[in-house]
């Protein structure tokens, strides 16, 4: 298993001006409205956001897994560095082209929230891992089986040879999630996209899975994009965090930046809205109003309809430009743009 250079200069993934819309009965709905982000080698990028933020859609687009009625804007760019060193522009690849299929599963892997529905119920776990391995590697069936058993062991599943022959329904939720990680990792991907992987798990199982992912990341040097709405989880796994709201990134920085020194009103509000053990019994600060529907997207900064610090005539006109607060910390807010001047 190769190890990547930690913190090497080129980014594994660079996304610029990503804009994704969907054709629906009610018209064209913009889910992701022009965002930029990047993932470094061997690092974990955490994307935190609530419903409608576009966090899942933006990552599925990396593997071109969007439904047929989706439109990726022509001006969007998703550049991925392959293991060979060559950089590929994902948006220019034909859907289901050979290169894309090689990348999917082979270099970029994806795990979901609900492991039960990600596995086919009629094949054994081992069979499904083997299928992935045989698809991407030039090995014999026996070799593939060995790789699969080894992988099951790696992810902490006891009695891997027995489990290999079991069906998904015979495994508990935690084990299925581990098995899903095994499938994802059997190809030694350079990028793992984890979309709410622990949201439906018990808290003790969640802790184990997070620990496992951290370990595997260190061992394999792979990058992770970790999507969740749980700030506690993201604080524990992510090196960098970006905060999304209604299709836009509102703030980006290292985990310390975001958690300890949040500068965007939304980020601050989120942190004040979650119950925390050190503030037991205190009143939570709720964010007024509701998340607008993507069908009636506010003009300007998407958060202005609920922001306590809104500046009328400014925030409702256009989206603020990014303000670089430090090498690592960027915020998109007029409150800071003004200070900059």
């Amino acid at each position, binding site marked *: 298993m190769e190890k990547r250079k930690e913190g090497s200069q080129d980014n594994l993934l660079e996304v610029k001006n990503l804009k994704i819309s969907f054709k629906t*009965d009610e018209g064209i709905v913009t889910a992701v409205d022009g965002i930029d982000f990047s993932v470094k080698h061997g690092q974990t990028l955490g994307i935190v956001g609530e*419903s409608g933020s576009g966090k899942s859609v933006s990552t599925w687009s990396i593997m071109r897994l969007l439904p047929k009625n989706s439109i990726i804007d022509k001006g969007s760019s998703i550049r991925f560095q392959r293991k060979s060193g060559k950089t590929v522009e994902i948006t220019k690849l034909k859907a289901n082209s050979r290169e894309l299929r090689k990348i999917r599963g082979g270099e970029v892997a994806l795990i979901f929230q609900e492991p039960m529905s990600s596995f086919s119920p009629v094949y054994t776990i081992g069979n499904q891992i083997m299928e992935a391995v045989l698809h991407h590697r030039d090995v014999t069936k026996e070799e593939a089986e060995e790789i699969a058993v080894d992988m099951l062991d790696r992810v902490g599943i006891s009695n891997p040879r027995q489990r290999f022959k079991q069906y998904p329904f015979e495994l508990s939720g935690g084990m299925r999630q581990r098995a899903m990680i095994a499938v994802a990792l059997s190809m030694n991907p350079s990028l793992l996209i984890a979309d709410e992987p622990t949201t439906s798990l018990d808290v003790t199982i969640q802790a184990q899975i997070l620990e496992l992912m951290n370990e595997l990341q260190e061992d394999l040097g792979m990058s992770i994009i970790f999507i969740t709405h749980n700030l506690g989880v993201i604080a524990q796994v992510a090196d960098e965090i970006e905060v999304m709201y209604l299709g836009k990134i509102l703030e980006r920085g290292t985990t310390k930046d975001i958690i300890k020194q949040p500068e965007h009103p939304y980020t601050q509000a989120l942190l004040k809205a979650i119950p925390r053990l050190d503030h037991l019994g205190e009143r939570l600060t709720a964010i*007024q*109003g*509701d998340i*607008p*529907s993507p069908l*009636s997207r506010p003009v300007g900064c998407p958060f*202005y*309809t*609920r922001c306590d610090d*809104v500046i*009328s005539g400014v925030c*409702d006109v256009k989206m603020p430009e990014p303000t670089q607060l430090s090498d690592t910390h960027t915020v998109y807010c007029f409150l800071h743009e003004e200070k900059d001047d």
Partner: protein
Amino acid sequence: MTTTKLSPIETQSPAVTKESEEVLRYYSATQFQLIWWRFQKHTVAKIGALILITMALMGLFAEFFGPYTGITRDSEAVLVSPQAPRFCNDDGCSLRPFLPGVTSERNPETLRMEIKIDPSIRRDILFFVEGEPYKLLGIFEMNTHLFGVEEGSVHLFGTDSLGRDVFTRVLLATRTSLSIGVIGVIIAFFLALIIGGAAGYFGGALDYGIQRLTEIVRVIPVIPLYMGLAAAFPVEWSSSQVYFAMTLILALVGWPTLARRIRGKLLSLRGEDYVVAASLSGASPSRIIGRHLLPAFTSYIIVDLVISFPYMLLSETALSFVGLGLRPPSISWGVLLQDAQTVRAIEQAPWLFIPAAFVVVAVLSFTVLGDGLRDAADPYQVSG
């Protein structure tokens, strides 16, 4: 989805107020209104509905739409092929459709009567003509027909072996076949509602017993059953008595499928949170059924009913076709198709199969309509 507190910015924006009116209508719409709006988007289903309505109307007023009666025989015009009205001939074109003249001669070789077309003679098709008397809807005595000719006869779909106008007979058959389907489904539905409903709501031993009963009824082989019952129809029975008996039999054999579906729906609805909420609010079982379960039911049931019609239709057609259902002088699509069972028909008079086209169109229309209704009713979309 609207914010509870409008910031000053929003109240000034005109876009918001315009949207609010439409949006308000949407928010106050009942389930049926929502289903109706969603149904409007299904063009194919609407076409299906249109076709069915047209068929129903034509069937209802069959005697008016058809130029003759179902039993008028013209021995001169036996097995005449369909005559398409024309608008133009050598003399020129006109708005009024007409038919060319026809004479019948006996072919010396085959010894059959053959039609020869004489294009020089022009027989205009007249509208709202007086023809044979009939009772519209069984009540009003009339003798006006939509169209007809003064000389000779007009047979849009040809004639059968007894010289009867196929077009009129097909229309009359439409009435019979569609009505058997409808009545059969309605009777089956009521049976299914009571039986399936009891099983689904009360569960337990009652459910168990009803399930087994349903299985037994379903297991009975249908064709021998029909054969036995058909043999049991006394010969003296009038065609209307046979008609009602047929409808009843179809319903008695058809209820298990509907009952299963109703039971299934009820079981799933019972577990819904809002039904539990109703019982936790202290609602009695009858209130839960009437106020909470039944309304949820109705949209599903309408869809189920529409989808069941084709089965009834096809059953009646098939049975009558093989002689186990309605018999002449009753007229249904299946009965008409009996005439088409000979090689002679296939070779020489293929227009006798036209009723089959009607069956196909009717079944397709019901299916398409049912699909459209199901799509409109099923995902009662939740916003967000």
